[in-house]
């Protein structure tokens, strides 16, 4: 057992009694105490709750009660996910005055029902309107591979906590790329499931049309274990689909053989750095993906996602913009005010275009099982960096890190980000599957992991 032990290995050891859940929990809490001052990943540590929970798991084992598939696995959640007894701050200062959450979010309850142990809440960009992991109230999440660099966001603490070895599993949210960007910058596996697959009940919203929750981990098996434990309908989330659990873990050994995989061309090649293009090419070579597919109108899809995001986000926060505007992170406030000023017909037209684009992209999947695309245009920028060069033009960094993720989440397609093994800063590649086929993306990711193409590498500076 060390800081890089996977959730699967921890659960197996707790189940067979070679280590206790209490020992695993104490070790995780010790790592958080040692490393969080430099990583700034955790905003709350639920130590007492975790110790009590771990002790109960130990008692259950002694009593002969079967333990779940995540027995004793420490995990943490982005702080927009409700933890009973804590105000759900969603990265904001304003929300700290909300009453404490009365109950855990559905996904926390499901992970704990599978034996996992919650150890805390994680830093994030304010109200999830962010790709950097910076936060003007709590300070920036720091990238374990280089503390001067961004984790990516908005699930920045989720990336930092898992890549820093503090926990093997974290939950994030992804509206336009907020799981996939930190997975890429921090060198992790991340799953953004199909829109409606996992319940969002008990999470602070951002854009109801586009919000997803999902896991980040250091192995595909861990991602799939957590995903399987969290699936299933939930009457508390009206967008959660009425689909029974479709377990992905049993499908992982099937590998990528026989799957027809194409590379996203055009828009998804333009503007990417050499590192991003090399990573995507390496994955494509390993999978013998020689076919290129053009997703039609991808740039316009990003524009439509942008419009829906800024208008729905503004509507959500309108009263707070009226009464407490000076308490927002200025970067978030100014974008939300701009969103409030956008005439309503644009938002409706963007939703109509979403329908058209969905149908057009689904036609692209005829004869194709998965599509490969870069996750981010570059490796992690420096904390505080405001611009970067995209397609030869210097552009604002914050709104543009998600150029390759936005056209995918816009229509809710499932994606696994795989970290491509490199000796330099990490960078991820998206494996995109048709709706409800997370199993395909996970199988491909697992295949790449087993062959050493994808790997969550231990940061050199972390002990």
């Amino acid at each position, binding site marked *: 057992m060390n800081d890089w032990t996977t959730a699967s290995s921890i659960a197996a050891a707790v189940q067979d009694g070679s280590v206790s859940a209490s020992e695993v929990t104490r070790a995780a809490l010790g790592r958080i105490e040692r490393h969080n001052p430099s990583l700034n990943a955790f905003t709350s540590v639920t130590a007492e709750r975790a110790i009590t929970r771990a002790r109960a798991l130990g008692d259950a084992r002694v009593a002969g009660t079967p333990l779940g598939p995540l027995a004793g696995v420490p995990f943490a959640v982005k702080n927009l996910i409700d933890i009973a007894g804590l105000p759900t701050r969603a990265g904001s200062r304003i929300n700290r005055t909300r009453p404490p959450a009365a109950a855990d979010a559905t996904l926390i309850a499901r992970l704990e029902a599978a034996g996992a142990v919650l150890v805390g809440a994680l830093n994030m960009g304010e109200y999830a309107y962010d790709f950097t992991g910076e936060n003007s109230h709590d300070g920036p999440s720091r990238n374990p591979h280089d503390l001067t660099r961004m984790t990516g966001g908005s699930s920045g603490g989720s990336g930092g906590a898992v890549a820093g070895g503090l926990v093997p599993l974290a939950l994030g949210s992804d509206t336009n790329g907020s799981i996939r960007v930190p997975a890429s910058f921090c060198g992790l596996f991340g799953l953004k499931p199909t829109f409606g697959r996992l319940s969002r009940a008990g999470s602070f919203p951002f854009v109801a*049309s586009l919000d997803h929750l999902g896991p980040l981990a250091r192995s595909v098996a861990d991602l799939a274990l957590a995903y399987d434990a969290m699936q299933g309908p939930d009457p508390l989330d009206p967008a959660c689909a009425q689909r029974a659990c479709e377990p992905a873990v049993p499908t992982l050994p099937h590998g990528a053989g026989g799957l027809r995989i194409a590379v996203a061309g055009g828009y998804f090649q333009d503007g990417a750095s050499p590192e991003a293009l090399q990573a995507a090419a390496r994955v494509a070579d390993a999978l013998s993906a020689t076919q290129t597919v053009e997703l039609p*109108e991808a*740039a*316009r899809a*990003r*524009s*439509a996602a*942008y*419009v829906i995001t*800024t208008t729905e986000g503004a509507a959500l926060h*309108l009263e707070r*913009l*009226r009464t407490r*505007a*000076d308490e927002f992170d*200025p*970067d978030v*406030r*100014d*974008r939300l*005010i*701009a*969103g*409030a*000023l*956008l*005439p309503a*017909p*644009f938002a*409706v*037209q*963007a*939703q*109509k*275009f*979403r*329908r*058209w684009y*969905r149908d057009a992209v689904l036609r692209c999947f005829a004869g194709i099982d998965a599509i490969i695309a870069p996750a981010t245009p570059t490796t992690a920028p420096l904390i505080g960096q405001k611009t970067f060069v995209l397609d030869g033009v210097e552009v*604002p960094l914050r*709104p543009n890190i998600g150029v390759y993720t936005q056209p995918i989440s816009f*229509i809710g397609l499932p994606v696994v980000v795989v970290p491509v093994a490199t000796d330099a800063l990490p960078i991820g590649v998206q494996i995109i599957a048709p709706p409800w086929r997370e199993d395909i993306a996970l199988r491909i990711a697992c295949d790449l992991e087993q062959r050493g193409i994808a790997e969550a590498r231990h940061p050199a500076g972390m002990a």
Partner: protein
Amino acid sequence: MTEIDELDALIDAGTAVLGIAVAPEWREQIRLHLAISLRHAAAVEAFPLPDETDPAPVFQA
């Protein structure tokens, strides 16, 4: 009227209607983000769609 004037007119009228008080030092960034949002909106609007196309989220009773 320059583009900046038009954006400022929209900011002034819109925030007045919505009841949002804008500090002078916020204006430059709001104007920047409004211009970006309007460019994205124009790209969406330029794509012809049939009147019959349903918006994407379908409410299910």
